[in-house]
């Protein structure tokens, strides 16, 4: 075991994957010599050479488009989009090509590639460095969508993603890169080196895709969260004293409905939290599934706490961010319902 920040864990995952499989290649804007604007790929070019880790032109569609070609050839590209907010130029390649290649060719060609991107707000990045576009991927058949909430998962999930034979959207909550941010933005953040989930096994291991985990057991209400919101939800449970069970989804698609259902069947109440805008967010799908599978045990409406339906503002960041205050309100509402 080693102590790692999330950045280090992600870097370590790529190092492990590249060492084990010469077909793993890593590229994107500023990821080569410099090692990425968040330094997630630092040292990989020196270690594996410029043919396996390199800088690209600023063209997200080119990055994903060439990665698809490479994946079809037989490599396993793991590419970086500098911010999730900049993935849209590549959206066509992801949705029309990567997601459908296996299906449309009946397995003649496949696209085993991982698309990493920092996601979420909390760093005063304004509307182009704060977005959470996961729901734009969960709607697309053929993609898997993963959001780790800590270094341990980040490493295990990223290795699993790179080794997976399907295209994967890997969203890294940038507010968690250095510590488990719980949404109390006016309090200091503990670094990962002081957090149990900063303990990360050395070498190869995986966290299986499609498996959620209970982060905080509880009996009163189930909270479904992922990424940064896992920590916010735990903080809200603590702050309100409500005996909430916090489930960290880890993979949004395929979703671990079993774990969710088991919990909601016990608690009879549920709150869903995400940072993305509310309307048509992934929370809507979660609500739809739970009300379908747990209708007769639900004692209150399922609450949703999410980013407001506006672009992500700069100055009003903490009014926008679904912090422990808003999540706490939703917990109280769910208990009162």
């Amino acid at each position: 075991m080693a102590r790692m920040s999330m950045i280090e864990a992600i870097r370590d995952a790529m190092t492990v994957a590249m060492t084990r499989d010469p077909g793993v290649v890593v590229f994107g804007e500023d990821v080569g010599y410099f090692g990425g604007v968040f330094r997630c790929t630092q040292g990989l070019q020196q270690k594996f050479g410029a043919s396996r880790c390199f800088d690209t032109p600023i063209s997200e569609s080119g990055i994903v488009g060439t990665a698809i070609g490479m994946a079809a050839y037989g490599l396993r590209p793991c590419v970086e989009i500098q911010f999730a907010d900049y993935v849209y130029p590549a959206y066509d390649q992801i949705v029309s090509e990567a997601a459908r290649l296996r299906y449309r060719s009946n397995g003649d060609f496949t696209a085993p590639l991982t698309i990493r991107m920092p996601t979420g707000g909390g760093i005063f990045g304004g509307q182009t460095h704060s977005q959470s576009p996961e729901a734009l991927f969960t709607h697309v058949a053929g993609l898997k969508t993963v959001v780790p909430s800590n270094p341990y998962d980040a490493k295990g999930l990223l290795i699993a993603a790179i080794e997976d034979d399907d295209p994967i959207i890997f969203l890294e909550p940038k507010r968690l890169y250095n510590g488990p941010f719980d949404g109390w933005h006016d309090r200091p953040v503990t670094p990962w080196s002081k957090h149990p989930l900063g303990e990360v096994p050395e070498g190869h291991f995986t966290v299986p895709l499609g498996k959620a985990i209970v982060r905080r057991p509880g009996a009163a209400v189930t909270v479904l969260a992922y990424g940064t919101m896992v920590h916010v939800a735990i903080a809200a449970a603590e702050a309100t004293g409500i005996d909430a069970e916090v489930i960290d989804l880890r993979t949004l698609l395929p979703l671990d409905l079993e774990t969710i259902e088991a919990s909601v069947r016990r608690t009879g109440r549920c709150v869903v939290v995400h940072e993305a805008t509310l309307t048509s967010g992934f929370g809507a799908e979660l609500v739809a599934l739970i009300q379908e599978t747990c209708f007769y045990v639900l004692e209150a409406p399922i609450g949703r706490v999410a980013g407001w339906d506006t672009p992500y503002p700069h100055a009003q960041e903490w009014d926008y961010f679904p912090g422990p205050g808003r999540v706490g309100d939703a917990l109280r509402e769910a208990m009162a319902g």
Partner: protein
Amino acid sequence: MSEHGPLSLHVPEPEGRPGDKPDFGDVVIPAAGTVARPPVDVPPEEIRELAYTIIRVLNRHGEAVGPWAGLLPDGDALQGLRDMMKVRAFDARMLTAQRQGKTSFYMQCLGEEAIACAFQKALSPGDMNFPTYRQQGLLIAGGYPLVAMMNQIFSNEADPLTGRQLPVMYSARSHGFFSISGNLGTQYVQAVGWAMASAIKGDTRIAAGWIGDGATAESDFHAALVFASTYRAPVVLNIVNNQWAISTFQGIARGGAGTFAARGHGFGIPALRVDGNDYLAVHAVARWAIERARRNLGPTLVEYVTYRVAAHSTSDDPSAYRPKEESDAWPLGDPVERLKNYLIGRGVWSQDRHAQYAAEVESEVLAAQKEAERHGTLHSGGKPSMRAMFEGVYKEMPPHLVRQRRKAGV
């Protein structure tokens, strides 16, 4: 108010519209044999003029002339003629089949057969094409079974793509034919990625991208050129300029550039323009570009000047937007006729043998169709399973799809 008066929008228009007399007077066609053939390691900036001319081998008398001639043995040229005739026969049958309701959709490449057929023959096993929907010639010249193509077109129980794809959107890795995307342009940059992968692995295989004149306007065309230029990817980037993009003439996509090949110049990519209706010229240029890629000299852009004789697809009626006689007026002629005349001139072919082969290939196609139809056509006979609809979305079916399949009762 500006001293220069009001601005106005320039909207390019083709020379002729329905009712007009077709006029290709503006298309400058250099005589066959007049364009030099540089060494493949020529610096791109020394051959800029090759993007503004047309490399041609077959002259009006059916002779092969000039520096790009003399590269193809008669046997190969004969095979080329047969390939083109097979493509044409195949297209004709499938068009009829669509009209008979045996499938939903079909796309011919009438008049453009030389391009894919000749290019395919310049490739080596293991190379990979990233084709559009109008390169059936790659498959047919590559020996892919006609029956398999028809099974796909009929979406029948033997369809290799299990009914999932629109007709003509083949996939055949074994034959160096990447799964066709219905989305224009996307596969061009994928070809570059495939070629980069080959270079990363120290392999010797090269890739070929394919795009139409209209689709060069798509963004991925740019991405492809940027990445190919930067990493010197071993890829041949083909542009099939058949003058039309559905109802839109090539001037809309081309804009103020003299040619599509010129697009390469902004990237330092050598660009050649070739008579797409001249099998020998296509083959010679393809070989040149493929050799460059194979020798790690990087990408080449090739524009094939040709004409889309038929409708865009079975959903289209060109008489609504271009003169009916335009295709007859097209100055580069018919690729089949031209190669036929050449071979007759060489004394290795004759009108009789031509007619005889035409009949043979017709029966070959018919026989294939019969066999395919035994497996069903779109609305009758054997069908791909409904189960197949749920499979192959992922390598392993995730729980939500298992639930949905169960709900569907299959």
